[in-house]
């Protein structure tokens, strides 16, 4: 322990306060004169001990506080350090260990709010003094409180049935927890089910995914609701009530065995409608199944294209041929309520819409494809059975893969989508393997930072795939030379060579980036969590709480949090499942005691608070003519407290007296 200075005061009958200022190495001490603050606070009324220490949050730092509480009979504790979001709990516990009620504590944020954001030492130190003084004034009014403990419902909801949701659900189910897995589409599998191979190992996506999909289906602890969406979420950590909307498939899920004879029997002899799963490159009938391994293997009818739904005059050969009598054209959407203790959101991503980059000609030139389309094209069960051919059936002689489409571009999405480099390498390999074409990669930087990724890049280089460092300006059918005639030309600066090149190809693959889902904002409001600026769900802490959100009991996993590849997604899904398990297996959860209550004798019975509460926690006792707050329902926002004309509503931790003294303290100079 270094340089501990202290001052003892006779506190003149005021509660005895201990003040501690943290150096945080040089994070705080580099900008704030901690010794000056320590001396200043020591002289404030009520302060019995004032100390500074290099790392208050460390064990010796906490022990120092504990020892002082006992030795100096401290009755209040103030720590000036980082954000309360980081270490409030740490110091509360330190206080409790030493026998002081943990809520006799106030934290002062002088790192995130002072030392990290200011550049002038004198004014930063002044600000730290003001904030410390405010806490010292405030903490006198603190009251001893107890945390409310409530039981945790052991069931879990997982939203999204891609690889993240599947992995999280299986992990929890294997641990013996009941899981409800809700998926919007008719099958689970997500984007991964569409892929052909996975990088860098080139193992087949279906081979590693489908066993997990069937495990979900057959697991006794998992309830699988596909073609369903979460409609409403109520409650709080450990005790959520969720309403799920189940959309009608017009086929009874428990009766259908997936024989697909109905599809054969459909009055449409040929598949006619663009199919979502094959990115529109393949066709389906109005009664269909997304792909042979769809889970659950249950057909569904698309009312938009089905003749029975459009005209009411179909002979319904599909229903006739079904000996299980599974068809029900009158099926309606259903709403189901479930109760869970924790929720894992694994809602995935959206592929960037390549039409937003008109200079790459997607939608204008048939030879331009998105990467996901190529995934389907090279897939043996895809629309061309794995043949790499153009829309007109020709085999491409040369293929150009343009990286960073909808990534690293402030006009569209400024982030790096993280997976495109690697999947572009994978597609380059597969295209070359399937078609023998000459393949060009147009990249800005090759980002291959994963286990065996760089080695994969090296393999591609050795295969003779071209790597041209430069962002393509334009895909055009404007030809300059005989060689370019009838082909698509890419204009690019070969930045390593230092000149512009025109490269004719037959097929262009746009390595489209990953975006937040179109409805990410609605979903985050539904679950009361946050989104970052770019629209991905916000984790509680970028390093230390990557799967937690600001709402306790709600966890995030996979690409809904940020673009990530399959290994990272699975790891994160496991982490989210572990966090949920930790919450559930604790059996109960302690709630922050910042709820409000009515001081009965002061309530004038005006009822102005009653309609203000968004949780209907306030009722009116007609017999006593007083408002009553149900503290279990109260979430502690304090709206009613601010509105009460007689001042009879108090909010723990945020009482009027506490806040007024904080205002007084911050300005007293």
């Amino acid at each position: 322990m270094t340089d501990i200075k202290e001052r003892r005061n006779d506190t003149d009958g005021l509660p005895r306060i201990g003040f501690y200022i943290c150096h945080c190495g040089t994070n705080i001490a580099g900008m704030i004169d901690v010794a000056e603050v320590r001396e200043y606070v020591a002289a404030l009324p009520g302060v019995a001990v004032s100390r500074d220490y290099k790392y208050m949050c460390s064990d010796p730092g906490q022990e120092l506080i504990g020892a002082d509480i006992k030795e100096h009979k401290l009755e209040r504790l103030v720590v000036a350090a980082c954000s309360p979001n980081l270490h409030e709990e740490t110091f509360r516990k330190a206080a409790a260990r030493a026998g002081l009620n943990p809520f006799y504590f106030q934290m002062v944020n002088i790192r995130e709010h002072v030392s990290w954001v200011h550049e002038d030492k004198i004014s930063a130190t002044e600000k730290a003094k003001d904030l410390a003084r405010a806490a010292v004034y405030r903490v006198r009014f603190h009251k001893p409180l107890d945390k409310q403990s409530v039981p945790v419902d052991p069931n879990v909801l997982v939203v999204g049935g891609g690889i993240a949701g599947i992995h999280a659900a299986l992990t929890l189910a294997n641990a013996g927890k009941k899981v409800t897995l809700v998926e919007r589409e008719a099958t689970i599998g997500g984007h991964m089910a569409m892929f052909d191979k996975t990088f860098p190992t080139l193992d087949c996506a279906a081979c590693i995914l489908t066993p997990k999909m069937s495990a979900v289906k057959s697991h006794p602890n998992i309830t699988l609701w596909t073609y369903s969406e979460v409609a409403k979420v109520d409650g709080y950590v450990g005790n959520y009530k969720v309403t799920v909307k189940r959309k009608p498939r017009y086929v009874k899920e428990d009766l259908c065995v997936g024989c697909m004879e109905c599809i054969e029997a459909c009055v449409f002899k040929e598949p006619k409608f663009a199919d979502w799963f094959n990115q529109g490159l393949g066709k389906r009938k109005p009664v269909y199944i997304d792909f042979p391994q769809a889970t659950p293997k249950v057909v569904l009818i698309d009312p938009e294209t089905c003749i029975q739904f459009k005209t009411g005059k179909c002979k319904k050969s599909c229903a006739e041929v079904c000996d299980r009598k599974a068809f029900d054209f009158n099926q309606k959407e259903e709403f189901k309520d479930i109760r869970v203790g924790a929720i894992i959101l694994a809602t995935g991503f959206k592929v960037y819409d390549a039409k937003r980059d008109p200079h790459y000609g997607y939608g204008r030139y048939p030879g331009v494809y998105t990467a996901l389309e190529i995934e389907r094209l090279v897939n043996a069960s895809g629309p061309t059975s794995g043949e790499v051919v153009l829309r007109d059936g020709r085999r491409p002689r040369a293929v150009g893969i343009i990286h960073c489409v909808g990534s690293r571009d402030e006009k569209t999405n400024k982030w790096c989508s993280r997976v495109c480099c690697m999947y572009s390498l994978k597609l380059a390999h597969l295209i070359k393997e399937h078609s023998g074409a000459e393949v060009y990669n147009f990249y800005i930087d090759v980002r291959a930072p994963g286990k065996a990724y760089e080695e994969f890049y090296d393999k591609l280089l050795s295969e003779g795939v071209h790597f041209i460092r430069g962002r393509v300006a334009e895909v055009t059918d404007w030809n300059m030379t005989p060689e370019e005639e009838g082909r698509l030309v890419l204009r690019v600066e070969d930045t390593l060579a230092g000149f512009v090149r025109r490269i004719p190809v037959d097929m262009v693959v746009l390595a489209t980036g990953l975006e937040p889902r179109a409805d990410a904002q609605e979903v985050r409001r539904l679950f009361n969590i946050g989104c970052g600026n770019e629209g991905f769900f916000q984790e509680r802490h970028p390093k230390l709480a990557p799967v937690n959100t600001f709402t306790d009991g709600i966890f995030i996993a996979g690409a809904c949090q940020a673009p990530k590849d399959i290994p990272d997604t699975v790891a994160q899904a496991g982490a989210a499942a572990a966090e949920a398990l930790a919450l559930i297996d604790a059996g109960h959860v302690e709630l922050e005691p910042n709820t409000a209550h009515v001081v009965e004798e002061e309530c004038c019975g005006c009822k102005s608070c009653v309609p203000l509460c968004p949780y209907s926690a306030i009722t009116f006792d007609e017999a006593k003519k007083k408002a009553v707050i149900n503290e279990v329902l109260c979430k502690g926002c304090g709206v009613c407290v601010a509105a009460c004309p007689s001042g009879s509503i108090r909010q723990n931790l945020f009482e009027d007296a506490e806040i007024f003294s904080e205002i007084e303290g911050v300005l007293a100079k």
Partner: protein
Amino acid sequence: MALEQKIKYEAERDRDFAQWVVTQTGGENLRHCIQCGICSATCPLALYMDYTPRRLINLAREGFKKEVLSSFTIWLCASCYACRVDCPKKIQVTDIMYVLKRRAIRDGVYPRRFPIPVLAREFGRMVFTWGRVNETLLVIDLFLRTNWFRFLSMTGLGLNLMRTGRMSFFPDSIRRRLELRKVLAALESKDEFRDWAGPVAQLLDEEVEP
């Protein structure tokens, strides 16, 4: 074949210049460049440039002032703004070219007898004098100052223009020339290289108002 030494030493960098560029209008985002090269790829003139726009941006950012200001690149820019629209970092490449052109003129390092800066200068003079530009006179002036021979080769075009009534040998003038000169004179001290484009004050002395 002559061997050329390509190494650069830190002493050859002009850090003030690099600092200066980003303070100029349009230079704000310069440092964000990721060297993707889309500016060069989209540039219709890049194939003639000694440094592609991407390389020029990097040279400017690193402070290689001599290379930047004496390059043809800045003078070849035709202000088509393709680079600016395409740049993923919203770097205002076209405006940076203007900044560098103005600096090259101020520092007197632009390529001599190169027609583009001459055109810019003569254009400026004509606007000062008349308030408007007569393309015919401007072009004649340009050729007389740069390349006599080419002037002769242009007679075909000239005759065609005369035939179609698109040529005029009389300068078109605004009425309130003095008003315009007052405006420009008031900015004398604001532009960095006031001596170059011609002494406005002198023009002010000539009373041109009818």
